[in-house]
């Protein structure tokens, strides 16, 4: 099958999924107690202004009409307005989503770089130290609440040793953010040659990235170890040995065959972390999209919740599409 045809079919499948996602979000928001118009205008507003605003927001219309209106606006990039910040949700998210994506991308790249070599080592020497370490690490890291781990790292590395930057955002106080290009500070600082911002951004990334990395290495390590073990005891590995191929080459091929489930897991973790990193964001005052969404939920800022869920789902879908592309690059059985 051609790549384009495959992706096309994939996208056709995505559309009903997006409809489902918007619909469930919409339903969920209806459940949130409180009248959004009243919340936006504050306690002193008159009944009449509230009624006018309700009308303006479409709250007086029927349920299907409201949903249709919501989807129609979303398609045009209008995700509504947050009553907390007073800004359009799309603008807020454009500001905050890069912060979250920067954080979790660094964490996952680092996790992969650590977990895959360790997992391969563990698989090649079953029962040895590296294997036992992989097992024990998976157990312990999976049991730690990441927000608590973040606090412990702050205690040791910031409070006691003073090595890390203060856990109060993405840059030191007094350092201006680099000129905005992508919204990810490290990338923007690098592109604009703003070295002060670059070093400050990395210092602030260090602890939250470490916190997330420590917890996400666990599942990736476990998966790499078990699939790699399977591949190393598979028929084709034994056959490669029979043909006298060098061990290094055999290991590389086994890894290539073991990669697809690992790649899938990384994608699942990535899409989970878009919202799941919120606990770490809270601990480090990160001000990312997750934190924004949680504030929205807790303060009945329903446009924010809807907007975030929609954007998070779209990012997940993009990540899964990238995974499909990687599969295509790895496995010829899909393309032909």
């Amino acid at each position: 099958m051609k790549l384009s045809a495959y992706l096309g079919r994939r996208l056709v499948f995505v559309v009903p999924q997006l409809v489902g996602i918007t619909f469930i979000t919409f339903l969920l928001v209806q459940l949130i107690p409180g009248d959004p118009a009243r919340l936006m205008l504050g306690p002193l507003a008159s009944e009449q202004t509230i009624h006018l605003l309700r009308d303006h927001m479409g709250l007086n219309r029927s349920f299907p009409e409201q949903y249709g209106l919501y989807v129609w606006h979303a398609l045009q990039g209008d995700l509504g307005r947050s009553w907390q910040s007073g800004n359009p949700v799309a603008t807020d998210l454009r500001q905050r989503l890069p912060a979250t994506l920067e954080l979790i991308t660094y964490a996952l790249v680092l996790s992969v770089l650590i977990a895959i070599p360790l997992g391969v080592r563990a698989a090649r020497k079953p029962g040895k130290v590296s294997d036992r370490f992989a097992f024990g690490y998976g157990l312990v890291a999976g049991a730690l609440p990441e927000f608590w781990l973040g606090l412990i790292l702050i205690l040791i590395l910031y409070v006691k040793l003073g090595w890390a930057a203060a856990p109060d955002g993405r840059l030191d106080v007094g350092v201006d953010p680099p000129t905005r290009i992508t919204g990810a500070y490290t990338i923007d600082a690098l592109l604009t040659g703003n070295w002060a911002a670059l070093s400050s951004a990395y210092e602030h990334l260090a602890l939250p990235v470490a916190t997330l990395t420590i917890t996400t290495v666990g599942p990736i390590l476990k998966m790499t170890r078990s699939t790699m073990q399977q591949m190393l005891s598979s028929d084709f590995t034994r056959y490669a040995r029979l043909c006298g191929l060098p061990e290094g080459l055999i290991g590389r091929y086994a890894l290539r065959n073991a990669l697809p489930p690992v790649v899938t897991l990384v994608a699942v973790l990535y899409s989970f972390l878009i919202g799941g990193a919120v606990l770490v964001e809270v601990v480090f005052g990160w001000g990312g999209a997750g934190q924004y969404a949680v504030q929205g939920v807790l303060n009945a800022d329903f446009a924010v919740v809807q907007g975030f869920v929609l954007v998070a789902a779209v990012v997940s879908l993009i990540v899964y599409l990238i995974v499909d592309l990687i599969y295509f690059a790895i496995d010829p059985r899909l393309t032909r």
Partner: protein
Amino acid sequence: MSAAEAAAAPATAALEVDDLHTCFFTAAGVVKALNGVSLRVEPGRMLGLVGESGAGKTTLAHSIMRVVPPPGRVVRGSTVLFGRDLQKLSEDELRNLRGKEIAMIVPNPRAELNPLLSIGEQLANVARAHLRLEKRAARERAVEMLAQVKIPDPKRRADAYPHELSGGMAQRVVIAMALIAEPRVTISDDATSGLDVTVQAQVLDLTLSLLRDHGSASLMITRDLGIVANYCDHVAVLYRGRVLESADVRSFFASPRHPYSIELLSAFSYEPRGEAAAPSLPYDAEELEMREVAPGHLVRDVA
């Protein structure tokens, strides 16, 4: 091996298996898969090894190549390739011999080939490992081998992946893999058993003519006595991890001595070309010796 046989044989065998014991240490107990197997393949000759499934044929091939999967292990005995005991070599030394001096043609090749690499790449890898060829030369050698095993349009087919091949094509690729470095000994393990009868005959003829051309000595493991009768010089009968009878082909088919061999042959004569129907008589030959009944014809005593 008996003194009489040793005296009659030429100085160096291509492959000599002596008193080979392989056990599987499974959770359910120790399984003795090979129980003192001795064989001899002369240079340039072909030894047919027959036995029903479960006799230990594949384990024998794996033991010779030292790739018995855990929990299996060779516990005793030697497998000597032109004077060098494979069981005593280091992993590195062994790697240089596998595929170069001694190669194996495997059954069920579509599971054995790496699904993510084109067959050209897989062949070229073997060529690079053993012939010290550069990338381009290895690739040319791969295409050449594909032509030798009569794969049409080999240049284009080299880019095909294992899942795109028919069973017969995959089998040819595996034969090409085995012969690409011109090994001096080839072990063929029931290599054509998974194919249609017509394809089977083609592939078999091809294999045998190639083995002849390359001057490779070979151990032909099979369940088909027809193959042995038509192509092999010698024959050995394997039953429950031990050799019951070994002889040159003419002597064996003219006068089989062991009751198990006789039964194999009689089952076979009803069904020429078919698989030897397995007579499962309780031959327990634990303590019995091999005896020479005619020059080069050895039979295990029957209690």
